[in-house]
């Protein structure tokens, strides 16, 4: 029997790599360092750059079509600041919402309205974690895998979530501390904070997203009451019975009001108790009148 036959038939990697595979979680860590072309850890270092071209200039408004709504939003943000460049981040957020990611086209449109070069905006977009410079799926699941959450099992949840989202229109990312360690392990699903999560919740998140309903409604942070025993004392010093989460239809919700179209709480007496998962932000006011 030949030397090669006794080992794996397609054995090509060096000893170090196979050691990583074989020794799972611990040994595997070193092997899991992301690698790009030619083994580099720097993404895009070998992306071709046409050096004969001049740098892109500020796009010409006559030849750069920009959706009206996006243009209005960018112009409104620019008006808020003494220096228009301050609107770079809000405008990129808006463009990403329209295009799904910060595509070259999206950057071109923002650059056109803001009168900045695409290079400047790309430099900003590449600095921040929430801007995607590559095409992405519709839904985002950011799983916090920082200290507190990982102590409580966030790494396992991340693996379960990544497995559950396989083949779906969902991006799963392990994220740095999202500022909700009290509900750890937690995740931000399209911006909605949910936790504490169990492994089975991964499937539920995928189902809820597919069905288009609010995600893990019973675990949303927005309903969580303060745990501080002194926080909800009435004047007599007695604490209200504390349940960890307010009942979804209980008026005690923390996110009440303030989120739907503003004044006029009088004409719709329950308006202040309505918003939340049953009436998310996007629902226009007329849809609520029947409730």
């Amino acid at each position, binding site marked *: 029997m030949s*030397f090669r036959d006794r080992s794996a038939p397609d054995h090509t990697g060096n*000893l*170090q790599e*196979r050691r990583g595979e*074989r*020794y799972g979680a*611990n*040994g595997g*860590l*070193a092997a899991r*360092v992301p690698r790009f072309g030619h083994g580099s850890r720097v993404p895009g270092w070998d992306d071709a750059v046409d050096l004969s071209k001049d740098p892109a200039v500020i796009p010409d408004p006559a030849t750069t079509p920009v959706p009206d709504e996006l243009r209005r939003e960018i112009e409104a943000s620019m008006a*808020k*600041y*003494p*220096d*228009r460049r*301050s*609107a*770079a*981040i809000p405008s990129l*957020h808006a463009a990403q919402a329209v295009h799904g990611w910060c595509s070259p086209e999206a950057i071109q449109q923002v650059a056109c309205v803001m009168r900045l070069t695409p290079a400047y905006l790309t430099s*900003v977009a590449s*600095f*921040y974690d*929430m*801007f995607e410079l590559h095409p992405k799926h519709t839904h985002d699941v*950011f799983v916090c895998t*920082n*200290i*507190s959450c*990982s*102590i*409580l099992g966030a790494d396992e949840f991340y693996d379960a979530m990544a497995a559950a989202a396989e083949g779906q229109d969902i991006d799963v990312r392990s994220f*740095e*501390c*999202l*500022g*909700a*360690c*009290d509900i*750890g392990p937690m995740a931000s699903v399209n911006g909605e*904070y949910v936790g504490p999560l169990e492994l089975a919740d991964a499937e539920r998140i995928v189902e809820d997203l597919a069905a288009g309903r609010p995600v893990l409604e019973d675990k949303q*942070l*927005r309903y969580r009451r*303060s*745990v*501080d025993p*002194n*926080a*909800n*004392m*009435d004047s007599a010093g007695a604490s209200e019975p504390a349940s960890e989460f307010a009942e979804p239809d209980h008026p005690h919700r923390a*996110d009440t*009001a*303030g*989120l739907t179209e*503003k*004044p006029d*709480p009088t004409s719709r007496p329950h308006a*202040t108790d309505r918003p939340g998962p049953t009436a998310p932000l996007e629902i226009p006011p007329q849809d609520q009148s029947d409730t």
Partner: protein
Amino acid sequence: MKPILFDRIDEPALNTLEVYERRGGYEMLRKALTMTPEDVLAQIMDSGIRGRGGAGFQMGRKISFLPHGDMVKYLVCNADESEPGTFKDRELMQKIPHALIEGIAIAAYAGGINKSFIYIRGEYQLQADILEAAIAEAANAGFLGERILDSDFTLSLVLHRGAGAYICGEETGLLDSLEGKRGNPRLKPPFPAIEGLYAGPTLINNVETLATVPYILRMGGGEYAKIGTETSTGTKLISISGDVKRPGNYEIELGIPSREIIYGLAGGPPEGHNVKFWFPGGSSSPVLTGDDLDIPYDFDSMAKAGTMLGSGAIIIADERRRILDTMLKVTKFYSHESCGKCVPCREGTNWTHKMVQRIYSGEATPMDLDIMASVQEQIIGNCLCVLGDAMAMPVGSMVKKFRAELEAEIEAARERAEGAALGDVVALGVADEHAGPIPVH
């Protein structure tokens, strides 16, 4: 203790102007506008309140550093709460946003400031939506804008959403980000009080600090200073997470024993487990062990114990947790979040992370711990901002306090790796040629 900021925090619809005003909201702004800015500042000075964001600098002194005279001055509220373990500002902004707005207005009046911003981290979408609605409500009611409440005081307030970068919580990084640039910290001095946002004098304070200002005015600065210890006055919001029964935000009086917070309020680790190590002030603070539970929780006692109160975020790990896993998370976080401007931080965080990974793969030796410790010494104090220090301090303290455990981890990982290598040799058939048993070592 009767809470100040958390008083009836879950009252329904407290985030609306109507309910906030019903319980006396914006009265202090009215009162402040009848006083001179100097008197308001004197009240804040008397309260002795120290910044709640991490550095613990006295707020009144910070305001007094602003130059006087006729110029555009700015106030920036730092709501980029991204220190691992910290989530107190989130609850405040979500549940009582008008206290923050009122505090900003009063602080701006005291500093002679007419333009203000709230820089909120991009991930806090719910909180940003609530704040945006609250700002619109306050502006409609005349608490923001031109000639507030018929006085000569004018103040604009803009909510600015970030996009996910820890470094933007550093004050000068935040200013660059607010100006629409990459969030790279700036060289100090000049300090922001002299040259900050758009090169104008800028006051930067944390959400909790600013939200406390109306209550200071209501109680009177001297009265507020009676809470807490002499140098750490007032109440503080504490975020507890990790291995405790009741994680969450608590409002405490500064100076109470840490044990009372961890065991009394948060219930301590689950039954049958004990505190092994804990971060007293976010992941940037040097760790303490289960023996340090009786240290009073205030700025100076923590500094004396070789650590810091930071943002008031306590992370508890019980004896089931390996120090190595936490070290990996800490180094990964800071190497990811380093902006890359200063070499000691960019390279130091990255190489420390690699050294921790080497421990896992069994390639490290105990000498690596010494190298790691020396790298931390090279980072501290050698960068524009303290992000590098924020990794160096906890990692340095872990190497110092848990050296025996780390050495055992190194040895165990090395044995595993060598066993694996020997297994490879056997599998490859090389070992067949040797007579006798294969020595494991």
